[in-house]
């Protein structure tokens, strides 16, 4: 009994310090995450104000901020974002859905794997940007060339990651279904597909970044709207601040789409702890 009376406050104190430490760490983490970008911006701002940095190439963050504020009040800014997002979404679906299906088929059926694997392996490492001239030759300057550029990049990544996801489903789960003599269709839908979801999400995560890169590249060379086009155009007329706003928007879009994938993953794979 004596032990508990001594033990309890001590335990509570230990719990308190532990909780305190966790809180302190959470705060420290935010600080550590924010410190590098804030420090960088600060150095940049000071450098620009003191003339130590050439503002022709590196305008002060504050001037970029002002420009940003001006731009978000224009219709053109939102139109650019809208059209870029639309291209990305359509391209993503055009490449992602067939990639998912082919990846599933390759994972589930050995003959399909044997037929397509060499082709996929050979074409996957090809830099898709190198194909831009050909894509524009075929599809011209219209929207399809942008969709297709994004789609082709997403397609291979989805195929490979989905296939890997299916092949990596632990065999014990297949044993359970096979032992119960589940039909092939039931095995696909109740074991192979949910088991492959982690791999599919890995694919999605990589695809978001790649889609953004390809979209901007395609808009550089063959578009008259969109964020990529706006950056390129800003360069050609030497509107440096506007160029930087474009960079910021792309960075923001990348961040938000990665976040969206995370959110989807938490929703669909609640058992997957990261």
């Amino acid at each position, binding site marked *: 009994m004596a032990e508990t009376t001594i033990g309890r406050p001590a335990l509570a104190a230990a719990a308190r310090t532990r909780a305190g430490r966790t809180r302190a760490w959470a705060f420290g983490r935010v600080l550590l995450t924010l410190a590098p970008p804030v420090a960088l911006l600060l150095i940049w701002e000071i450098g620009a104000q003191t003339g130590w940095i050439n503002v022709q190439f590196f305008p002060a963050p504050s001037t970029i901020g002002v420009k940003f504020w001006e731009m978000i009040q224009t219709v053109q800014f939102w139109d650019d974002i809208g059209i870029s997002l639309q291209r990305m979404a359509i391209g993503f679906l055009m490449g992602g859905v067939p990639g998912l299906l082919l990846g599933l088929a390759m994972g589930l059926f050995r003959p399909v794997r044997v037929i397509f694997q060499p082709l996929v392996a050979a074409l996957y490492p090809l830099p898709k940007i190198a194909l831009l001239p050909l894509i524009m030759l075929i599809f011209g300057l219209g929207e399809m060339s942008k969709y297709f550029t994004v789609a082709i990049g997403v397609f291979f990544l989805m195929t490979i990651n989905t296939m890997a996801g299916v092949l990596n489903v632990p065999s014990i789960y297949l*044993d359970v*279904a096979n032992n*119960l*003599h*589940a039909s092939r269709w039931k095995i696909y839908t109740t074991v192979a597909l949910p088991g492959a979801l982690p791999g599919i999400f890995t694919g999605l995560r990589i695809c978001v970044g790649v889609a953004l890169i390809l979209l901007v590249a395609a808009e550089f060379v063959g578009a008259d709207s969109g964020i990529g086009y706006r950056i390129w155009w800003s360069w050609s007329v030497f509107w440096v601040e506007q160029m930087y706003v474009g960079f910021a928007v792309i960075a923001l879009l990348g961040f938000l789409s990665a976040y969206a994938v995370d959110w989807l993953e938490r929703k669909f*794979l609640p*058992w997957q702890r990261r």
Partner: protein
Amino acid sequence: MPAKISIRDIGKVFEQRGEPFEAIRDITLDIGREEFVCIVGPSGCGKSTLLRILGDLEEASSGDVAIAHDDRKRPLTAMIFQQESVFPWLTVEQNAAYGLKVTNNWNGAESRERVEYFLERTGLLQFRKFRPHQLSGGMKQRLSVARAFITNPEVLLMDEPFASLDEQNKMLLQQELEKLWEEFRSTVVFITHSLDEAVLLGDRVVVMTSVPGRLKEAIDVPFERPRDLIELRRTPEFGEITHRLWEALREEVQRARTMEVGKIAGRSGVDPSVAVGS
């Protein structure tokens, strides 16, 4: 009446790194209806291979296996594995219902009640909405037991289901399994490396030899059912039978060990006879 499970001269040869590996040889065994048979043997003797053949997950290289399917509405076998085999993407409830759903035996309210009953019996009812990653190892294994029982199989195949659990949990689960089985009799083939477990649960204990696994001996366990496993452990008969089993098994374990040493010594170029020290 013919046996429920009739195993005739079966053998299994695997291909291992390009070389044939004989896992089991010439096994002949009859198992009666509602008989609880435990199979023990040194590790790596092909016990699991035998069970996987019965569960239709592996095909025998030679010989015949016949399992009488008495009631077409019941699944023939349901297997409980040693490793974690509950699906992480399903809730406890969905996992428990999986066998019924996947065999097209789900019939609404009655099935729901059945799932509920077995979750209650395995102490998982209050965790029905949880997912496996939120459960302990013992709970996950209880869930596999529930999943198998819920399908109401004619034959339960258990592959060291409690081997990865701690001793206390294992004792509780053994008792729970015994009670469940008393209530829902089916034919059971239970693989274990624990002699205690085999004697506590089985009507008959079959001893296998070291690899390639053959049948060495079968010992009948005369204890009445239902059994109180804790009390049973304290009886002299229990010690007697366990001892007899060990006598049968000891030689095989020794042989398996010698072979293991030989294999490792062979790889590293040490003379096996020196390494064993016999």
